């Protein structure tokens, strides 16, 4: 039971950036633009957040939160490149996204070289630290799981899941967004500005992915390095598919991945799992993701027009 209480908060903390980034992917894909650049946007966000935090830390105790905000903004700016190439220039979205991923790795390291004269940002002193919510923490059973040494981005992730669900499924804006992802020509015939909706979708995904990258670096690392994001953007894309393009599905998929990851760390302390080679558990989160994708493959249908170049004349 102790292991369980130690493991679950770790799983939540690990899953937070994945869920936030996957929600970003949800907005983009629902609008009809595949955003494979989540990884690259997370890198740019993480780099910006770390840099801003390093600079502001001597001035304000809330530097980490300013860092989050800066990372979010940087994500929006960076994703605008993807929006411009794939919407205005009608480039292949996968190629544009891949280009951004490659660009992000070089760009962040290059900028770090200019600002900090090394291949990584300087180390920030605190970043974002775990919080214990007074009062709620003493609730039996639930308190230790959700409110003791919890990662602040996990709360942000939960809030964003609710916001995303409401916006996408309960507002006229959400309906229009989804229409653009399913059948843009039909949406356009009803007077919806498809290009504007898609721009919004991509920029929101940039904001979320930038925030996710910032959260990852500020809560887990001591500085931004080229390896800081280590493929989390792609795991987030898997969470999006596994979660069937639904905010609650995404949350479930993210937590599932976090739990699998935590299990790999705790396996050698759980009596009936001892004796299984550790490599098996390193592989577990990825293997489980693939298995889950296979199991749900038939039912996992994304927005119909996602990835298609919008041609207003097509019927």
């Amino acid at each position: 039971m102790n292991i369980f209480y130690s493991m679950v908060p770790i799983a939540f903390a690990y899953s937070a950036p994945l869920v936030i980034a996957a929600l970003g992917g949800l907005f983009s894909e629902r609008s009809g633009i595949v955003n494979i650049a989540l990884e690259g946007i997370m890198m740019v966000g993480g780099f910006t957040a770390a840099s801003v935090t390093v600079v502001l830390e001597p001035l304000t105790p809330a530097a980490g939160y300013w860092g989050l905000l800066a990372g979010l903004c940087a994500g929006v700016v960076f994703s605008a490149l993807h929006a411009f190439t794939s919407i205005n220039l009608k480039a292949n979205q996968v190629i544009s996204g891949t280009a951004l991923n490659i660009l992000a790795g070089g760009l962040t390291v290059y900028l770090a070289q200019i600002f900090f004269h090394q291949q990584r940002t300087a180390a920030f002193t605190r970043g974002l630290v775990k919080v214990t919510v007074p009062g709620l923490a003493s609730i039996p059973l639930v308190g230790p799981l959700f409110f003791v040494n919890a990662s602040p981005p996990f709360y942000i992730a939960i809030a964003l899941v609710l916001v995303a669900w409401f916006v996408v499924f309960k507002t006229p804006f959400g309906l229009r967004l989804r229409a653009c992802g399913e059948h843009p020509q039909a949406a356009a015939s009803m007077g919806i500005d498809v290009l504007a909706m898609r721009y919004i979708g991509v920029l929101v995904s940039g904001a979320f992915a930038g925030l996710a990258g910032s959260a990852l670096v500020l809560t887990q690392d001591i500085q931004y390095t080229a390896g800081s994001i280590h493929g989390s953007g792609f795991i987030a894309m898997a969470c999006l598919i596994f979660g069937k393009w639904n905010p609650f599905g995404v949350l479930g998929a993210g937590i599932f991945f976090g739990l699998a990851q935590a299990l790999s760390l705790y396996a050698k302390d759980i009596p009936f799992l001892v004796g299984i080679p550790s490599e098996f558990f390193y592989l577990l989160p990825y293997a489980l993701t693939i298995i889950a994708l296979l199991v749900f493959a038939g039912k996992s249908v994304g927005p119909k027009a996602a990835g298609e170049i919008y041609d207003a004349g097509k019927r």
Partner: protein
Amino acid sequence: MKKSIAVLLLGLVAAAALIAAPIKVGLVTDVGGIDDKSFNQGTWEGIKLFAKENKLKEGVDVKYLQSTADADYIPNLSTFADEKLDLIVAPGFLFEEAMKTVADQYPKQKLLIIDSVVQKPNVASAVFAANEGSFLAGVAAGLKAKADGKDTIGYVGGMKFPLIENFQAGFEQGVKTVLPNAKILVDYSGSFTDAGLGQALAAKQYNAGAYIIYQVAGGCGNGVIKEAKERSAKGDIRWAIGVDKDQYADGIYAPGKSAILTSMMKRVDVASHDVAVMVRDGKFPGGQTLVFDLKSKGVGLPATNPNLSAAIIKEVEKYTALITSGKLKVNSVQ
């Protein structure tokens, strides 16, 4: 200490310089760049020291080329080889393949690879006895825990293979030597980049009572340092031990306070300097693997350790002497 070594070296060099002709040494950096505060910079400092001792000109007799991508390694090494430098140095395992290719293309060129092994007759390989440096880190950790009345110490490795297990072997032995009833927690994350895993493992070990954690996991180890900083900043003092270079600055969580107890350093500067001296003296160890250990000052703790008491530093020096004199044998898994 440092001064006396420098004086001694200068004396030796002054004598040697009379007989040896000046030589040319080139460094090719990896993508980390010349001022990475790590392997590239360290290697270059060793070469600069060699240049100073031998009155060689920087930029003429000793120089470097920076690589901006992995694809630059072979062209950069070849550029220096075409200039017929006496020694070309490359730091880090990233150069392994490029070194093999260039060694075959320029069979007369003397090459040095640091922290990796390339078996070619014209390549010298410099590796480090990480188990010996880790032993000292273990001694420091054990004594620090003892002084503060703690008994649990952790080790977080990246991937589990002999090179990394060697750190563990030396560290465990060091801890047990000074704190025989210590409880040592050992975990491997399976990653050298995922800081989230490092942080999670650190949280797990600190929750289980670990007072100090030795992290040998590269970027993943950053997560261990993050957790130590976070806890220490909240008043729950925990320590992490740095690896490869002096990581004191990475652990600063409040002005003048760092969560890095000490660091196990690989002295790449010693390796590049010493091999350059060998080349100058006509004793290039081509095809050999040189092990830089405590005795050759190739591994060890940083010169200054603000978080270690004078008593602990004295004990560490005592064990250093025992190891260098051969009276104490450090465990190894290789």
